[in-house]
Structure formats: structure tokens, C-alpha cells
């Protein structure tokens, strides 16, 4: 599948934003008001900012962005529509929660309620994003059972790295739970990806060119229907060489491990370098997530490629 940059940016940026938002919601639900107004305000702005940038970038690849509002109508059948509805719905409790959370001594029950609802909606939105892909019968690599967990865990891992960095920048170092959550989430992200890659590499081909054309047996393509590349080929026929695929997978793994080490260093020896290390960890986790998402598209084969000379999918 062709990796469109707007979609990669959307899923990674909004994923990190929703992860951060969920963690903030849970923090507020469990610990009451933010300990510091500026830390609270900055965290909420980063979370909602990333989500908003992501949502806007997802409309860039539309043929008619001005009609985007129509996408809220088909939630009964379409995961893309559900994602749109939930993305917008999440703003309501999120904004209320944010306002309440940054104020000192807010009502704890209200915070608990709004924080929990915000965290749940944020995660359900990420599940909807993943389901857009996981529900397509035409792309087997996306039907893998790890697709939804990977989207969730990358959202939480990048969100946690962000929260850790924000806390460090605002002088809130030495919160053991936060450091541990970040390192565990980044580890889980790497493990989840390894399971997914092993899974798609070991998939046995399901359909052949003979199946697709109904001609059976060995079918060869001797003439294309057109003289230059068409939409189907450029959108669905994208291929990445196996060699490059392996290298890029190593980059994803390397970024995640390096981010983990940096978080650990910042946590253990923090001091003045703490915030710098923590911000670097966010950058590395972000690069890892973007490359991971790029590969998610580039290494997925579409059934239609059978009509264009691919022998099996």
C-alpha cells in the first residue's frame, strides 16, 4: 500500500496526543488537580494540539476537505466515520477536564469522572483508527490480530514519553511511576511490533493469480491494460524491497530501545541534563513511530495486485 504522508502524520501525531490525553485523564482521576498550573496547561495544550494537527492533516489528503463534515454520518457501518465521531466527541470531556484539572483544588469526584471518561474516549478513538485498517478484508497484513494492540500500545508509549518529558521540563522529575510506565510501554511497543512482523512474515499465501482471475493453475500476465501507471498501481501496488524493509525495522527497534535508555538515564541521573534527555527520548520514540507506520503501509500487499502480476498474496 502506498504510504501517504498525511495519513502517517495523522495516525502517529494524533496517536501520541490521545496517549498523552489518556494518561493526563488518569492522572487527574487518581491524584486530583495538577500540581502546577503551567505544567497542567502545557500538557493539555500539547495533547490537544497534537490531536488537532493530526486531524487536520488527515483532511489534507481528501479530495474535498470542505465536505469532511459528511464523514460523521455513517457510524453504523464505517470505522472511519466512527473515528471521526469519537475524535470530535472526545474534545468535550477533554476540554472540561483540562479546565478543571489546571485549577487548584477542583472537585475530586468531577475530576475522577471527567478524567476517566476522557481517557476511555481517547483510547476508543485510537481503536477506531486501527479498525479502519484492521477491518479491510483486502489487505491480509492488516487483518493480523496485533494491529489494534500495536496502535494502542504505540499511542500509550509515545504519549508516556511526552508526559515524561513535559514533567521533566517543568521540574517534576523523580516520579517513579511515570518513569516505569514509560519504559514498560516502550518495551511493550517493541515486543508488539516484533510479534506483528513475525506474524506477517510467516503468513502463507492465501490467493493466487489463478484464483483471482478464476482461470485456475498457473496464470501469467502478458499485457497490462494501460501504457502508464494507473491509480490502482500507484495506490495499491507500492512495494518496498525486503532488504530496505529489514533495515527500517531495525531503525524502529533501535529508536525504541534508545528512547528507553534515555528515559532511564534521565530518571536515574536526571539533574540538569534530565529535560534534555527526556525531550530527546520523545524525538526518538516519535521517529520510531513514524517509521513503524510507514512500514505498516509499505509492507502490506493488496489482493488487487494479483490482477497486476503478483503471483500470490
Amino acid at each position, binding site marked *: 500500500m502506498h504510504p501517504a504522508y498525511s495519513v502517517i502524520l495523522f495516525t502517529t501525531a494524533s496517536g501520541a496526543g490521545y496517549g498523552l490525553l489518556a494518561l493526563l485523564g488518569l492522572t487527574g482521576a487518581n491524584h486530583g488537580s495538577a500540581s502546577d498550573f503551567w505544567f497542567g496547561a502545557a500538557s493539555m495544550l500539547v495533547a490537544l494540539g497534537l490531536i488537532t494537527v493530526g486531524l487536520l492533516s488527515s483532511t489534507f489528503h481528501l*479530495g474535498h476537505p470542505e465536505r469532511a463534515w459528511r464523514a460523521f454520518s*455513517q457510524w453504523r457501518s464505517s470505522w472511519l466515520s466512527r473515528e471521526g465521531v469519537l475524535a470530535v466527541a472526545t474534545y468535550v470531556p477533554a476540554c472540561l477536564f483540562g479546565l478543571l484539572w489546571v485549577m487548584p483544588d477542583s472537585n475530586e469526584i468531577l475530576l475522577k469522572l471527567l478524567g476517566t471518561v476522557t481517557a476511555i474516549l481517547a483510547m476508543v478513538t485510537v481503536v477506531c483508527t486501527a479498525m479502519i485498517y484492521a477491518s479491510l478484508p483486502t489487505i491480509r497484513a492488516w487483518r493480523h490480530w496485533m494491529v489494534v494492540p500495536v496502535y494502542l500500545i504505540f499511542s500509550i508509549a509515545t504519549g508516556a514519553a511526552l508526559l515524561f518529558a513535559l514533567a521533566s521540563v517543568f521540574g517534576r522529575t523523580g516520579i517513579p511511576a511515570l518513569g516505569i510506565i514509560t519504559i514498560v510501554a516502550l518495551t511493550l511497543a517493541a515486543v508488539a511490533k516484533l510479534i506483528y512482523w513475525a506474524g506477517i512474515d510467516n503468513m502463507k499465501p492465501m*490467493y493466487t493469480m489463478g484464483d483471482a482471475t478464476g482461470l485456475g493453475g498457473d496464470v501469467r500476465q502478458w499485457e497490462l491494460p494501460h501504457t502508464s501507471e494507473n491509480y490502482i498501481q500507484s495506490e495499491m501496488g507500492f512495494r518496498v524491497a525486503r532488504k530496505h524493509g529489514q533495515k527500517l525495522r531495525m531503525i524502529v527497534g533501535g529508536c525504541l530501545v534508545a528512547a528507553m535508555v534515555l528515559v532511564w538515564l534521565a530518571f536515574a541521573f536526571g539533574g540538569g541534563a534530565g529535560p534534555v534527555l527526556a525531550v530527546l527520548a520523545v524525538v526518538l520514540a516519535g521517529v520510531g513511530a513514524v517509521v513503524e507506520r510507514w512500514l505498516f503501509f509499505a509492507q502490506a500487499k493488496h489482493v488487487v495486485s494479483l490482477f497486476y502480476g503478483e503471483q500470490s498474496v
Partner: protein
Amino acid sequence: MTTLPDTTRPGQKKLGLVIDLDTCVGCQACAVSCKEWNTQGYSAPLTDLEPYGPDPSGAWLNRIHGYETGEGDNARGLHFPRSCLHCETPACVTVCPTGASYKREEDGIVLVNPDTCIGCKLCSWACPYGAREYDQDDGVMKKCTLCVDRIYNENLEPEDRKPACVKACPTGARHFGDLGDENSGVSQLVKSRGGFELLPQMDYKPVNRYLPPRARRDKAGDVEAAPLETVGKGDGSLAERVFSWIDEVLS
């Protein structure tokens, strides 16, 4: 509405095409007439970008592939037209977030509403058959309309109320009709020729059918014919010798 209509009722109309892989000669007449009709019809325009440049591209609703099957003496080439199969349970409809992609209840035709499509392209990802092409210039998805603006068009003569591609095919390899009615011409044709659907394993339940190439005949049939006469009578007469001398000189 992108939820699918119930098409399981008895007597449900299922309009579609039956394509004969035996007689299709790959002349592209159907593709060209489809483009010609639809660039001014329901899906208009069907944009071509840089049509005369070095790298032309554009939206077409019908494409004709060339495939080869079999080995050695049994190898054969064939042409394979590919357009929307107007599936009964297609994910291209259910994934659409706007309701622009829909299946008509009355005849099963799958259409895109060009006024509400946002051009998210998700439906083209959901189609296993590559039947949807995005129009870059128009910003909406295009697909075969089963010539919905011809088949019910009272401004056309009754014999012209058929899809443009069916009318254009010089070998009669494309047939149009109601595949929901088992007594219809197309249903009978499918039955007699062993018509099949593409990728039934995917469970999209295509309505269109393909007729397989007929079995190959390796030899020409035996035709009774009298043996050719030899020159002369072979009796060594003068006339015989003169003729064989002339034959030698000339050959």
C-alpha cells in the same frame, strides 16, 4: 446510507454483466466507449491528466488485461476485461464514512454520489477487484455505473438502453441483464457455459459473471475430400512424357 440493503428477498433484481473470456479479442472498444459515454454522463468528467504528455494517467471504469495460461502446446493467451462486479455484500459500500458509496435496493447497482464523496479513497482500498479509480482532478471516486443513465433512459431508443460497453463490443463478448432472474438470458448463458464469479472466497458475492474459455481443440476436424488427381495417367504415352518434360522444366 452505506449500510447494505437486504438483497436476499426472492425476485430481487440483480443487474450485472456477463463477460465471455472465450470470445473477447481485447480490442478495447468497450473501454473506449465506456470512457466516452461516462465522461459526459453520471460520473462526468472522467479526467485524464497529461493525455498527450509522456506520462498520461486518468480514471477509467473498465480495463482489459492480457493473461496467459497453460504450458507448451497448451498455452493460450486471453483478454480479461475488469470493471465493477456490483457485488451483493461489498465492503466498498460499508466502509464509506459519508454515505456517498451506496448500493441501490431496486436493482443492486453500486454507485458513488459525486456530490457527497469526500475523496477519502477508503472504498478503493476495500475493493478486491480494483474497480474504483480516484479522479485526481475532480477529487471524487469513480466507478462503473452499469450505465445507469443509459439503461433506464427514455430518451434513447429501446435497443440502445444497454451499457455502452455492451453495445460497443464487436464480438458480443459482453452481456447485460438481470442475474437475479434465473430465466433471464444472462442467467441461462451462465448456466449453459459454466459462468463463474471472481474470488468467491472473499465473500463479496459479485453479481457479474465470467464465462470460461472453451476447451482447446488441438487438431482441425477431419474433412472428407477426394484425393488430388495425378497429372496424366502414368501409362508412359507420348503425351505423358511431354507433360513430365514440361513439369521438369518448369519446376
